[in-house]
């Protein structure tokens, strides 16, 4: 009985400590589960549903040299800032959203990486991306991980500011090739 009295008399301390603990370890794990942009590839997905952890694990199975981490960042209305979004290396976005992110996309040179026989997204004579999901046929890459809206085409793009394109270490291109091969 005395122990409960003691506990209730200090309720504010227990609550305050729980909050401090959650914030502190949240911050520590933020540091532990992150690394510098030079050593990670970030894939931003704007699809209906995303098995982000499973997809990251699948992509990490064939991690390019020098890359310590592959992060999959699904779109969320609860994102506090767009820093992660703007610093992503790869984007999977639906056709209607392309204009919104257009300025972030890098132009690709033909033959710079293996996109197979997939349809390309061209704008002003430049190749910007490849189709990753075709609404007409219902065929798409990494369908086990990415839930595409059935009546919308999706494309894969590269961030123009990525450190991992052809003139860098090319790691983003290797991850893209792997992504397109995932079931």
């Amino acid at each position, binding site marked *: 009985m005395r122990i409960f009295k*003691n506990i209730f008399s200090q309720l504010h301390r227990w609550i305050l400590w729980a909050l401090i603990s*959650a914030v502190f370890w949240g911050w520590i794990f933020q540091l532990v589960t992150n690394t510098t942009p030079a050593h990670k590839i970030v894939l931003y997905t704007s699809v209906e549903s995303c098995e982000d952890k499973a997809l990251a694990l699948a992509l990490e199975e064939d991690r390019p040299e020098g890359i310590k981490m592959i992060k999959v960042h699904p779109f969320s209305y609860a994102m506090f800032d767009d820093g992660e979004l703007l610093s992503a290396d790869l984007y999977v976005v639906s056709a209607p959203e392309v204009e919104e992110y257009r300025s972030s996309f890098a132009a690709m040179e033909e033959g710079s990486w293996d996109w197979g026989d997939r349809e390309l997204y061209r704008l002003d004579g430049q190749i910007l991306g490849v189709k990753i999901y075709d609404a007409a046929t219902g065929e798409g890459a990494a369908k086990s991980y990415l839930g595409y809206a059935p009546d919308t085409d999706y494309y894969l793009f590269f961030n123009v500011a990525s450190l991992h394109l052809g003139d860098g270490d090319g790691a983003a291109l290797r991850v893209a090739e792997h992504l397109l091969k995932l079931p």
Partner: protein
Amino acid sequence: METTQKLYSPADLPRLEKKIKRERTLIWALAGLTLAACILLACLTNTANAEEMELAAIVCSTVGGWLVIYRRLFGLLEARYELQHARYLLETPGDILRGRLSITKERLRIKNSIRIRILLLEDGEQTRRLKVNETRVKALRPWDGRQVTVELAGGYVAGIGGADADL
């Protein structure tokens, strides 16, 4: 029953000092274990288990912290207050009062000090309110409702005996 009883003796001081040392060791051990467990969880983190490990570390740190806070507030600090109080009573010369003792249910907590219980001492002319360390109330139970002699040091009961006792 008519024997006199001192509520504090010099032998209490080393016992309380030992208790303080024990509490301090326990608190450091708990804090160290909690921190070590959280660091271990952070080190075992990978892409597959990051969220679970973070949750486990938060739970571990929260519960460990609660135990540390509880032991500090209700173990270490209480033992320190007890020690200060015992030293104070042993060093303060006492007054002798006589009357009929009643143990009330009124409890008080003095900030940064011990928990106290209020006693009433009626001597036919007036009723005095006396204070006693809550942990020593048990020793006064046999005297409840009886004529007693009380040794009072700094407003606190330090000893008790029968009506004609020589404290």
